[in-house]
């Protein structure tokens, strides 16, 4: 283990992953650009809505430069992004960076707290489930996790609102946060969406942890450890868990990505000003620069988390660390 961090193969692998990630990001930018071009519907029409006159639509099209060829707009866009300029929103004419940054920050804030609760909890529950495998505790944990995963997100959200906000009035049902809100108040505001998100992602991580560790538990060295007379918990935590880390990190990263990228429904229900809602608003209005910017950020988050997962897998697997 110790030598691994000095060895250049690992560094090389990690560097490769990062380079690949950057390359991917470029590929994604092309795809996103192309995708937004073939979205049905006309930007100008969508901005002005159902009651727009044809003249107003034509005027806006001209003004927005929608009549330029697509590849020109792509290069202009990428050039801008590389210099930190995401462009202006078509609908509001505001700098995207200005309106997007607070939303991104909010999304990360919510995702952070959801992850901070759900990751340790799911791993601990997974470990417990393995320790008492096939016993009533294991079954109870599995059953609860499965039931919660099976419910649509909005259903969980509404149930939380019904019981914790309307009936008991412990927490506010709407989680509007804003700049300059006291930290504790902010935390209180996001309690319900955090609970909802934890419930949504918990089971997946918990079950993968359990399955991954059980898989390792069948190896010969675990049997050796057992024969040495180590306690069950010791074996699980010290021998099985570290060797099961790769699939666990993988599934954790998938869920982290979900917490950043996929929480639109939760945002709508709890009225949380995050990126998902921001994206949907702009998709509906065909505000292409914003959709592209958000898509690119989501892709970057996703690719970044994947690099972390891959690197973790490399570090955790001695054989991958020393490829023959």
């Amino acid at each position, binding site marked *: 283990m110790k030598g691994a961090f000095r060895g250049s193969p690992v560094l090389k692998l990690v560097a490769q992953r990062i380079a*690949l990630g950057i390359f*991917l*990001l470029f*590929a*994604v930018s092309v*795809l*996103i650009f192309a*995708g937004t071009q*073939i*979205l*049905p519907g006309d930007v100008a029409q969508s901005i002005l809505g159902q009651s727009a006159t044809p003249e107003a639509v034509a005027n806006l099209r001209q003004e927005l430069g929608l009549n330029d060829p697509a590849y020109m707009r792509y290069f202009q866009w990428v050039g801008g992004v590389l210099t930190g300029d995401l462009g202006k929103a078509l609908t509001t004419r505001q700098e995207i960076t200005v309106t997007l940054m607070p939303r991104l920050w909010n999304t990360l804030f919510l995702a952070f707290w959801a992850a901070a609760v759900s990751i340790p909890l799911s791993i601990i529950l997974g470990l417990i489930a393995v320790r008492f*495998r*096939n016993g009533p505790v294991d*079954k109870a944990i*599995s059953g609860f996790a*499965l*039931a919660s*995963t*099976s*419910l*649509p*997100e*909005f*259903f969980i959200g*509404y*149930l939380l*609102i*019904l019981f914790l906000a*309307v009936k008991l009035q412990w927490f506010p049902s709407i989680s509007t946060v804003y700049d300059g809100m006291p930290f504790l108040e902010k935390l209180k505001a996001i309690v319900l969406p955090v609970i909802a998100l934890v419930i949504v992602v918990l089971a*997946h991580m918990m*079950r*993968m942890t*359990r*399955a991954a560790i*059980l*898989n390792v538990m*069948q190896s010969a060295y675990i049997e050796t450890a057992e024969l040495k007379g180590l306690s069950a918990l010791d074996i699980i935590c010290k021998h099985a868990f570290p060797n099961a880390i*790769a*699939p666990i990190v*993988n599934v954790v990263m*998938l869920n982290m990505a979900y917490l950043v*990228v*996929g929480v*639109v*429904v939760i945002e709508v229900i709890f009225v949380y000003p995050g990126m*998902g809602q921001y*994206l*949907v608003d702009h*998709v509906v209005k065909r505000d292409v620069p914003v*959709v592209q910017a*958000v*898509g690119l950020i*989501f*892709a970057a988050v*996703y*690719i970044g988390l994947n690099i972390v997962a891959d690197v973790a*897998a490399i570090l955790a*697997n001695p*054989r*991958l660390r020393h490829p023959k």
Partner: protein
Amino acid sequence: MFNIRQIPLAAWIGLLLTGLAVICALFAQWIAPHGNGEIVGDVWAPMSSAHWLGTDNLGRDLLSRMIYGARITIFIAGMATALSFSLGAILGFTAAVVGGLVDTLMSGVVDLLMAIPTLIFGLVILAVLPANNVTLILVMGILSSTRVYRLSRAVAADINAMDFVEAAKLRGEGLSWIIFREILPNAMSLLVAELGLRFIFSVLFLSALSYLGLGVQPPDADWGGMVMENKDGIVFGIPAALIPAAAIAGLGISVNLVVDWVLTRTTSFKGGRD
């Protein structure tokens, strides 16, 4: 090889409920007391002897809707899950075993697909392609196969580094032997554990698509879509909103109970303990 007496209670429950749902799905038009789109009563009528589960947001018999819904839900989610697993697992294993450029390319494409938010992806694809159930299954299957691919590849990469795979390679076994005889049996337990969850995710994904107006065409509805249709009633405890949700949870749990049971069986096939 299946000894009925050895099936534990939990698995029995799972088999029973899953079986019930499948029977409903297969014989919907004979079991359901009313037509799928038929208006039979008042909106959100409570449970009664005429309508055992009450009526839905348009006054249609909820029991009949549930039975027809079982068909749509199980068919689309099941097909999508099957597609995603065959596609994802085979490609993932291949990538891990072959490695090199193939691995890099395939992983790149998969990362590319995954890196684009599902919402944008779904919107674009489903807006361009004709809206029917085949399209739905393809889109859902391919999108979720990327997740299966990641997992399969990670698992297979671990197994691929094991001595017995090295041995098989030295023996000169072909690619399909290594994938199906060496990797697949050893990756089975993780994949099966994922299978049950993927099925639930497919059901949920279907309901999310219904939410965006891209799902099943009315008057047909999947269970998730039915929760959606009746969602305004949730905070008032209207059963029409709760029953389909409970059905999804019930189906999810029972499928996974069966999966768990299969999981313990496959591990014992491999000579593991318990």
